């Protein structure tokens, strides 16, 4: 051998050895790293579980009047299927219009305080009224019935994977057999990759000129789902195969199969991906896996190949064909009998509507997240699968959303100056709805479009309340007498004319709307007509500090400037604060702490947190009643009387609010059981140019009309210590038969007038009053 050749050979050998050893080192490092990846996945936290937010549950009771249309909607959203025959399994219902019988087979549901097992129930209706509720399993009469809460949304990080992890022993054997038969029949005979399947798939692919069939085993599919993408490349397939071999070497077949059954993707509901067989059983059939029929089991197994394409939600025909393929395979493999096969093949797949979880309460959820952030990290909320039960009423939420959006649109149509080009500084609004007795926030719309702006005006926007603040002045006045100050009653005469208030060396001259003054008026009239000058005089007599104290006591938390203009609402507060303060009045002087989160449970159904209704009596029920009685006049005769003309006729109290510069329009109004605050304005402080009665009241009225429809009509009940007498509204004295108008006025006992109306004297009346 020549010397040069020897040299080349030596170099080549060294190079070969170097490359080979490097390859071996790299290969073993690569294998080690893949093994580490597989091990970490199998032994660490495999999945992220988004927390789920639920609405409040819905209580039906004997004697209640149902909004039947709303109830069907609710059934639909809860996944109940309407049947023509009597419901046989959970999640079905039938309504027989002619006899007024509603049969429903309730779902199971784990509540924070109890686990409810679904039962068949018959609800008898007479028109919209529930006349009887019966548990059909026991024949027992029930007096109330709780419909499970609705899923509002999930809290997730990037992708919402909906999944409930189950043990292999919890999966019905038939489902396992069906999945193995259709996806990997040699699962228990290979070591992660199946050469027989690969050869078969390669042959098919070569013949077709592309990748049309996979030879992947379940283990390979699991590896792909755990770590890899869907791209059809040979490099990916090789990696998948190596990982499958590693997994099979390290873990048992049952461990791999259990992971597969929990990991597998099985469909899509809007933003929510359906993963694992437990979740898929609920998604497609609204029932637990143990209740699946042979046909349903076959379909579930068949869906794995292409869940969205074969979904019965998309095409009943495609789903039926696929099911039949699986059934034939099960029959061939003698997993089912011919009798079972024939029965299953006859099962008709019902056409079902796909109900997406759309998050109809994004502002509410944002508010909730802030509240939850006090106790739970973002990681905990997006990974640990908490179940969060809230006070949200989705029916009221949808009505609020609709009322605000349509109301703002109508305003823009009616007043061209409110229309803005583009998205900048468009007309905005907010609604918050509270149940005064419990403080539960039932609905919240923080703006016109969550997509455009997530700024939540309900609790983030501090705006001037304008005349909405005035009731605090009048309440302070009613309280002043009891505290030894000047005594005010609803018929105390107040001067409504221009005046100057000198306060700590400063002069302030409050002016009325349109510079219109009414002379001497009763306290009631001043409040009903929202007279600035008269209100300012009352505030001056009472003391502005006292007014501020009352506002804080009722629930205003923002700091309030102690200046005369505060009487007319020259301060900055949020709609949420206004709602809480007026809830205190609606609730007879008892302030309830705002409540959104009611309970938090972990995935094992352990209650992590429970927030109860919290109340505090801050005002006597008598004073609260007199204020409510005064504020009823605002709707019956005052600045909000249009609510009556627009069809809202229930007993209700409220107050309009307009700021001096016409930038903010408010209305806060309430029945004894429901309170709503509406704010309308521009974020950029542009002039709205409309009063609260023009801009906010129509939205409030529309909301309340729909929200209270079908609910019992309630009025404010006078507590002991209240005297209601008939008076003449002009003089404020006891009415005589000659008074053209008579008003029933409420007084704290002992404060009622004793003299008769001097404007319309009646001799007979006076005689009859004599001893």
């Amino acid at each position: 051998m020549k010397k040069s050749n020897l040299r080349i050979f030596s170099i080549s050998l060294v190079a070969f050895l170097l490359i080979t050893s490097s390859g071996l080192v790299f290969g073993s490092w690569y294998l080690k790293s893949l093994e580490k990846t597989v091990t970490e996945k199998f032994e660490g936290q495999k999945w992220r579980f988004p927390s789920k937010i639920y609405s409040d549950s819905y209580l039906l009771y004997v004697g209640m009047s149902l909004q039947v249309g709303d109830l069907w909607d609710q059934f639909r959203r809860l996944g109940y299927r309407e049947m023509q025959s009597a419901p046989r399994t959970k999640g079905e219902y039938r309504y027989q219009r002619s006899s007024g019988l509603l049969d429903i087979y309730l779902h199971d549901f784990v509540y924070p305080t109890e686990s409810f097992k679904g039962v068949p129930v018959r609800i008898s209706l007479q028109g919209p009224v529930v006349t009887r509720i019966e548990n059909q399993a026991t024949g027992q009469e029930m007096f109330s019935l709780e419909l499970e809460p609705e899923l509002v949304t999930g809290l997730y990080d990037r992708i919402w994977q909906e999944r409930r992890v189950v043990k292999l022993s919890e999966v019905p054997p038939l489902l396992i057999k069906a999945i193995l038969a259709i996806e990997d029949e040699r699962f228990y005979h290979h070591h992660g990759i199946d050469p027989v399947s690969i050869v078969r798939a390669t042959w098919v692919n070569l013949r077709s000129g592309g990748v049309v069939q996979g030879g992947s085993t379940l283990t390979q599919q699991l590896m792909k789902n755990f770590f890899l993408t869907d791209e059809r490349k040979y490099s990916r397939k090789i990696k998948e195969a190596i990982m499958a071999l590693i997994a099979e070497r390290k873990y048992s077949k049952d461990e791999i199969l259990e992971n597969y059954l929990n990991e597998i993707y099985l469909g899509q509901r809007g933003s929510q991906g359906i993963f694992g067989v437990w979740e898929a059983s609920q998604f497609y059939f609204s029932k637990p896996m143990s209740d699946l029929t042979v046909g349903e089991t076959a379909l579930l197994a068949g869906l794995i190949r292409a869940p969205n394409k074969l979904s019965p939600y998309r095409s009943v025909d495609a789903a039926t064909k696929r099911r039949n393929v699986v059934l034939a395979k099960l029959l061939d493999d003698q997993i089912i009998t011919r009798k079972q096969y024939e029965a299953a093949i006859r099962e008709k797949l019902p056409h079902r509507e796909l109900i997406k979880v759309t998050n109809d309460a994004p502002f509410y959820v944002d508010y909730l997240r802030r509240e939850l952030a006090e106790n739970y990290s973002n990681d905990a909320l997006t990974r640990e699968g908490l179940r969060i039960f809230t006070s949200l009423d989705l029916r009221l939420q949808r009505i609020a959303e609709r009322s605000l959006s349509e109301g703002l649109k109508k305003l823009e149509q009616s007043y061209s100056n409110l229309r803005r080009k583009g998205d900048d500084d468009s007309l905005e609004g907010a609604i918050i709805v509270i149940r005064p007795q419990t403080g539960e926030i039932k609905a919240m719309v923080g703006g016109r479009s969550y997509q455009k702006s997530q700024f939540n005006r309900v609790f983030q926007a501090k705006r001037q309340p304008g005349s909405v603040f005035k009731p605090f002045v009048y309440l302070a006045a009613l309280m002043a007498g009891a505290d030894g100050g000047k005594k005010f009653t609803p018929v105390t005469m107040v001067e409504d004319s221009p005046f100057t208030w000198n306060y700590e060396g400063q002069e302030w001259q409050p002016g009325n709307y349109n510079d219109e003054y009414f002379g001497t008026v009763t306290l009631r009239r001043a409040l009903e007509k929202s007279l600035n000058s008269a209100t300012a005089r009352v505030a001056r007599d009472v003391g502005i500090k006292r007014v501020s104290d009352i506002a804080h006591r009722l629930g205003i938390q923002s700091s309030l400037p102690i200046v005369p203009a505060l009487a007319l609402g020259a301060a900055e507060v949020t709609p949420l604060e206004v709602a809480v303060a007026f809830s205190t009045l609606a609730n007879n002087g008892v302030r309830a702490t705002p409540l959104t989160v009611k309970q938090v449970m972990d995935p094992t159904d352990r209650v992590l947190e429970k927030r109860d209704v919290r109340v505090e009596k801050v005002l006597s029920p008598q004073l609260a009643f007199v204020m409510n009685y005064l504020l009823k006049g605002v709707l019956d005769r005052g600045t909000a009387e249009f609510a009556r003309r627009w069809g809202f006729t229930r007993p209700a109290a409220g107050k309009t609010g307009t700021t001096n510069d016409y930038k903010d329009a408010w209305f806060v109004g309430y029945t004894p059981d429901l309170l709503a605050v509406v704010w309308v304005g521009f974020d950029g402080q542009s002039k709205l140019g409309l009063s609260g009665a023009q801009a906010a009241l129509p939205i409030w009225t529309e909301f309340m009309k729909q929200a209270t429809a079908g609910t019992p009509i309630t009025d404010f009940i006078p507590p002991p210590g209240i005297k209601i007498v008939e008076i003449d509204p002009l003089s404020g004295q006891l009415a005589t038969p000659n008074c053209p108008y008579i008003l029933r006025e409420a007084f704290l006992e002992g404060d009622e007038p004793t003299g008769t109306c001097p404007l319309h004297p009646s001799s007979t009346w006076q005689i009859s009053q004599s001893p």
Partner: protein
Amino acid sequence: MKNISCPVNFFVQKIVLGVVALGFVAAVTESCAPRPPYRTPIPPAVSRPPEAPTLPPPPPPPAQESVRQPLPQESKIREQDLKTKGPVTPPGGKEPSKDAGPPLPDDSSLLAKITPGIPPQRAASLRLTEEGRKLLDAGDPGKALSRLEKTIVVDSTNPYGYFFLAKAHYRLGRYKESLNFLDVAESRLSEEPFWLAEVHALRGENLRALGMPQKAEASYAQALRLNSGNRTAMEALSRLQAEGSSNPR
């Protein structure tokens, strides 16, 4: 809270309470003393954190009373038993003094308040209240609280819902919260002396648990003025007085 500063009233109260207490001591020696429909266990006179993370069990009653929580069906039996026997006679068979007023007929049955003309929401709310009461009697105040919160949602004017909410909070050791609900219940029960007496008696229990024995005593006395047959107040006062005599304040 209640006015105990007037010396005449206070003196009269003490006499009444003394008579009642003596009667009670005599009664506990009798084995067949009638049982009240709903017994409120007396907590130890120490204040507990109102927001304790683990829920405290109902406070144990004094040993000589051999009180245990009645089962729901038992409570029903007692209720019926009481109805047949009429109002509770003070222990020892002695009549309360005139200042204490007569014992009132038992008005504790909520289901009896469901009459044909009652609004459906009130009927539903009363039934839920009754369920809450049974859960309380069965020793499950947490579950009772959830049920009782619904009572005021269904019918915000149901005063018994507020009373039993107060009771549930008391059983959970949340005495201040219980007092808040009692304030609401009181303003809505002002025309029902039987229930108003229950409110005052439970207020006494809360005040006692909060370490305010004098205020508690005034509340018990107020309960007895309204209904001299109020068992909770009667027993609590006896105990307070017994404690007072052995440990003079």
